[in-house]
């Protein structure tokens, strides 16, 4: 697929009135040169490559816009994504900057879905034309031949017969081989103007003169050398596609369509005993853009009800625009289904492990999977290091929890307080936290907890469990400094029940 006027079409799309004006894009800087022209500008005699001054001389009414290859590239990639509606193997063509934009579509095995190759092409052309893109296409056995035919062939007959590229392309100029301009000029200098002129020549002599390039491109075009199209988005091994007879826009319709795709996908996964870890829904809109919704699960799932419930909320936020004409479901990450759940779900939730997994996925997709966790013990004397967070569905051995009375709430950072003790090593008798003074009537301690120098050096701590006159219970500690005469610092580390 060749979009010869991608840059100017892109500009005209945002400004329909400008379609009837001669328009060109030009580079910035000292010697400004024209990079792309629309049909009217070309008719007036403006060609890419000439300077702006020359262009304005032949076409005084010419409107100029800045050359913006990045936007062109982005548009082309968006279009390539959208072409995923026709085939998963769609890619933007990076070759030949400044000559519009190209799209690769490998429609092997896909054409019958649209009623044949000709109907598919007609569909694609009609769609692009409605969006304001001039397009030419070529359809052949090899990417090279299709490329050549789209640009230099007969636009009225875009489809080459199978194995017909050798004869069909013989009359095209050598530039159709995707050669560097210098190489093409060099061949022309030898009188080799048409591709057919190269067929009879010994390979060695061409290679000696022009390097591997010419033979390589010729082989690619004729199919002697494979040229895979690397799709922009790696097609997932498990995917389901559905095109709609009429574009749909209502959220319920979209959900229903996704539901049907899910049923098919899950049936396929079930047969292979696989489950989804990551699922992507791509919705193809009629305005040649796509919307994507992705969810993750905390363990492999192939229950359509489960997946639909996770998808329901993000799908509700999808902007259908003028309508959605196709939907594709791809399981971008799959894993074997676990036969037995040896984790907490199986052990703790008798009878309803799926319910729990569904809840955790729902929470995880909305809040982030790192925000749904389970506490687990860690070997450490430091209270703040004795607990770590595990993923909620992780399997774990039974935990050994530290003995001794521990608070119910441990402050993530200990709060400095002013405390008074009668003797340096005695429990405190009062402390001040914020604006409030707590008179302490009972105390347990001190429990010395040594700093773990291999984790983080710091002073040892003397912990006290204290109770004030109203029965509030706190965990205070004093930093222990050996010998030196500094006043001890006190911290409140947690509250007891």
């Amino acid at each position: 697929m060749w979009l010869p006027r991608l840059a100017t079409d892109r500009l005209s799309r945002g400004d329909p009135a400008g379609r009837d004006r001669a328009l060109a894009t030009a580079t910035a800087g000292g010697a400004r040169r024209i990079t792309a022209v629309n049909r009217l500008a070309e008719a007036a005699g403006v060609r890419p490559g000439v300077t702006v001054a020359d262009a304005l001389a032949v076409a005084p009414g010419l409107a100029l816009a800045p050359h913006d290859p990045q936007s062109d590239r982005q548009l082309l990639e968006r279009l390539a994504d959208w072409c995923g509606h026709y085939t998963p193997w769609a890619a933007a063509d990076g070759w030949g900057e400044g000559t519009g934009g190209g799209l690769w579509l490998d429609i092997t095995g896909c054409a019958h879905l649209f009623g044949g190759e000709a109907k598919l092409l007609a569909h694609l052309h009609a769609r692009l034309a409605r969006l304001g893109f001039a397009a030419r296409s070529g359809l052949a056995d090899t990417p090279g031949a299709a490329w050549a035919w789209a640009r230099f062939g007969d636009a009225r007959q875009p489809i080459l017969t199978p194995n017909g590229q050798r004869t069909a392309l013989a009359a095209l100029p050598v530039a159709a081989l995707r050669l560097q301009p210098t190489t093409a000029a060099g061949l022309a200098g030898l009188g080799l103007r048409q591709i057919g002129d190269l067929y009879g020549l010994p390979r060695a002599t061409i290679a000696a003169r022009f390097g591997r390039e010419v033979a390589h491109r010729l082989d690619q075009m004729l199919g002697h050398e494979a040229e895979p199209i690397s799709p922009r988005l790696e097609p997932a091994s498990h995917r389901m596609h559905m095109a709609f007879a009429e574009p749909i826009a209502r959220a319920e319709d979209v959900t229903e369509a996704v539901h049907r795709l899910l049923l098919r996908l899950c049936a396929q996964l079930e047969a292979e005993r696989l489950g989804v870890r990551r699922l992507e829904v791509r919705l193809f809109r009629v305005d040649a853009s796509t919307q994507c919704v992705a969810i993750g699960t905390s363990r492999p799932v192939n229950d359509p009800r489960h997946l639909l419930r996770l998808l329901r909320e993000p799908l509700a936020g999808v902007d259908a625009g003028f309508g959605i004409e196709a939907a594709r479901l791809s399981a971008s990450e799959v894993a074997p289904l676990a036969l037995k759940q040896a984790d907490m779900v199986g052990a703790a939730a008798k009878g309803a492990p799926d319910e729990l997994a569904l809840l955790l996925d729902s929470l995880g997709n909305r809040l982030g999977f790192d925000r749904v966790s389970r506490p687990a013990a860690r070997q450490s004397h430091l209270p703040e290091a004795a607990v770590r967070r595990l993923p909620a569905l992780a399997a774990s051995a039974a935990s050994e929890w530290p003995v001794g009375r521990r608070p119910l709430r441990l402050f993530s950072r200990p709060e400095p307080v002013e405390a008074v003790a009668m003797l340096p090593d005695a429990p405190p008798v009062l402390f001040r936290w914020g604006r409030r003074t707590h008179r302490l009537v009972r105390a347990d301690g001190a429990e010395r907890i040594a700093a773990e120098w291999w984790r983080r050096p710091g002073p040892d701590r003397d912990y006290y469990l204290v109770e004030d006159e109203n029965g509030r219970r706190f965990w205070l500690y004093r930093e222990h400094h050996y010998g030196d005469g500094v006043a001890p610092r006190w911290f409140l580390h947690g509250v007891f029940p």
Partner: protein
Amino acid sequence: MLRSSALSTLRARIAALEGTGREVVAGVVPLAVPAIDAVLPWGGLPRGCLHEIAPISADRAEAGAACGFAVAVLGRLAAAAERPVLWITRDDDPYAPGLAALGLPPQRLILVRPYKPAQVLWALEEGLRCAALAGVLAETWGIEPTAARRLQLAARASGGTALLLNRGAGAAPAMTRWRIAPAPSQAPAGEGVGAWRWQVDLLRCRGRAAAEDGRVAAWTVEWCDETRGLRVVAAAGDRSAEPRRSRRAG
């Protein structure tokens, strides 16, 4: 006579609409404290509804007691159903070793840490709809009556049990509402801090009228490490038998 029966029919209809009728659909979890279970019309905490537990003030220094009582209740729910419980908080995590000591095994606990206040109630509702949980605890700073009614209906529909550890304005249409204050522990002089004690006030309970002081019932309750459960050490009527003043001297 006719008027009063019409009134009670109406009340029953409203209760049915709000999902707060006295009849219990999802079972009852006894707190294993005979004195308290006897006051509750269901003989324990009914499942499938909302229970509110509040500290006596929003001060962080008071948070421990209410949190402790909530953990003890949540532990009962988890043990009765042998299922995990969900704890939703935007505060520091509850400290697992402390939970274990209050009868809630940490391996039964799933922590959810939303970053927006609105997500707390959303997560609570999600949790209530999940049949695989024994209960859901959410820490809130006040709750709108509409939101609370919605949660009550969700709990009613699914049989899930919600504990609302509410440090803000309450008056939610909960089945029960508890106010927990710390109480000084009892231990022989010089032996440090005794077993955890709380002043438990039952402020609201469907089917039980509150007394003049605004409470349905009140107890002083202690956590007993040997039985791994709560026990009542003094009921509301005989609180004078344990003068607070004398304990202060200890």
